[in-house]
């Protein structure tokens, strides 16, 4: 099962990385969103997959019966989802403000911090 998932995860990463290399910020943002999902799936698969049995202890028991899904990766992913969503929200607002101030969505044209046509360094003494 994990193998097929690995292929799907590979597809996720391919699309995410391709989008991240875009020149437009909005496509980069799409890439970030997909990247987050890809990483979550990767952690999920890494912890090994088990169909359908959630890691919940039945009412009557003190310890779960039989095999259950691996709870630890789920906890890690929950943390990762929340963190990556926070970053995503920040990036969205940052792109919004950057578009407002710099007037463009195209990173090739964002040359305020590192301007084009930089002159050579000073020479002499």
């Amino acid at each position: 099962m994990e193998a097929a998932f690995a292929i799907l995860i590979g597809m996720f990463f391919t699309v995410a990385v391709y989008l991240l290399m875009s020149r437009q910020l909005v496509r980069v943002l799409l890439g970030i969103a997909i990247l987050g999902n890809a990483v979550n799936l990767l952690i999920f698969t890494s912890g090994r997959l088990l169909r359908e049995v959630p890691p919940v202890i039945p009412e009557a028991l003190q310890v779960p019966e039989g095999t259950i899904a691996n709870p630890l990766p789920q906890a890690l992913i929950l943390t990762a989802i929340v963190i990556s969503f926070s970053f995503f929200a920040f990036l969205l607002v940052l792109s919004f403000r950057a578009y407002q101030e710099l007037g463009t969505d195209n990173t090739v044209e964002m040359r305020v911090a590192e301007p084009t046509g930089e002159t050579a360094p000073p020479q002499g003494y």
Partner: protein
Amino acid sequence: MAASDYSVDLSQAMRMDAVPPGDWLMIAPLVITILGGALCLMARKNTDSQPKIAIIFLTLLVLACAGLLARVLDKGVLTMVAGNWLPPFGIAFTVDAMGATLALTSSIVALAAAVFGINDIDSSGRRYGFYPFLLLLMTGVCGAFLTGDIFNLYVWFEVLLISSFGLLVLGNERAQLDGAVKYALLNIIATTLFLIATGLLYGILGTLNMADIARKTASSGVDGPLMTVAVLYFLAFAMKAAAFPVNFWLPASYHTPRIVVAAVFAGLLTKVGVYALLRIFGLLMPEARLVLSDLIAVVAIATMLTGVIGALAQTDLRRLLGYLVISGIGSMLAGLAMGTGPAMAGAIFYAVHSILVMTALYMTAGVMRGLGGSYSLRELGGLYRASPLLAAAFLMLAFAVSGLPPFSGFWPKVLLVDAALRDGHGWIAGAILLTGLLTTIAVGRVWIYAFWRGGAEGTADGQLTASLAVPREVGGAAVWMPIALLLGLVVIIGLQPEFMMQVAQRGASTLVEPLGYLRSVFGDIVQ
């Protein structure tokens, strides 16, 4: 909940010994910084009291870290587990000499920045969070240095990162937003790679506790997919540490925020990445370090040289200093590449020196801008007459960053070159020495243009611009006290490096001979 007829032996799940009171110092840094950050946040509107709160809490932080270092030097590696669960099941905080030293140095720098920020950050900046961000940045930094769990390390990296975002955009200038876009995206990718590597590591080893990982890799070796995961870790932290060729984010952004923010970044951010590399390749997967040592050496040499070459290419003082940060990272990576005790000690010592010196240099650059009106080497000039005190401070820091005696940069350089020559790494020794020479040229040029020259570029030979002929006051105590503090430490460490030398050697010995670290986490079960 049904009455339990299921008996449980608590000692199988939890640590039963009482926590000695001194051990609480391990989480004191986190508590202090979050409390301070929360208070500053609550005092949002009251921009006058925020610096006071922050300085008080950061002073407490320095004291706590100093106490922690003293305790670690006295008692050895310390461990405390959240919830008192047995490691490796709960999250352990494991503090050794390296982590404690770096935490102490970082907190000193943060305190200096908080004082410097009194002048540098206006009320709008304070209202929108300079001090809360600074305090929470320190939460992330201290958490990263003190934790003993690799996923927990990821969480602190994220806290550190988001705080740095906040500091970076404070002010909302166009250059800041441009720089922030590049900084944010590249750093998010770096931490994502870290997370991926951690997920895969969990998939291989089934554990997240650092000592447990060290134990498992020691017994089963690092081969197969674990080696690829190790390379992925190297890439992720090399990005965080701004190693060549994945350091684009640093020169793209470090010169955009307020100068005090740039100072904190230059001192702290990349060093956390170096710490992570030392921890992972020194303690967790030393076999991987052995296999990858040539690769790490090549990256180190490339980073050193491209960093200083980049510095020589700059006209803007802040960008020049950013490249010097990169160059310093290369030296630390060289220590990692060599991997022996003295080499790692050199890397740790260099990290402490770099934290102090780079922050001080950025602050000095801020004062130079205040006096000279610009950060450009073409427009600065005549500062030697205008402020001899500033000139003396800059000169000492310039010599320190070049590794010249009698300042703090000399001793780690000697340690690293010595380690390189002893183990036959001639290329590394040569690269470190050449980098030192080129750094001298780079900072020498800054000195010649900004201080000795009589004015901006094009001033007639022998002339001094009239406005600069009279010594001027620039900035009050808030500006000079932090610089004096950091410079004082640089001079003291340079003149009497014995303490730092011992601490660095202690830190290195935990990495090279991890028995003490493992014993601290697992007790005497480990043989």
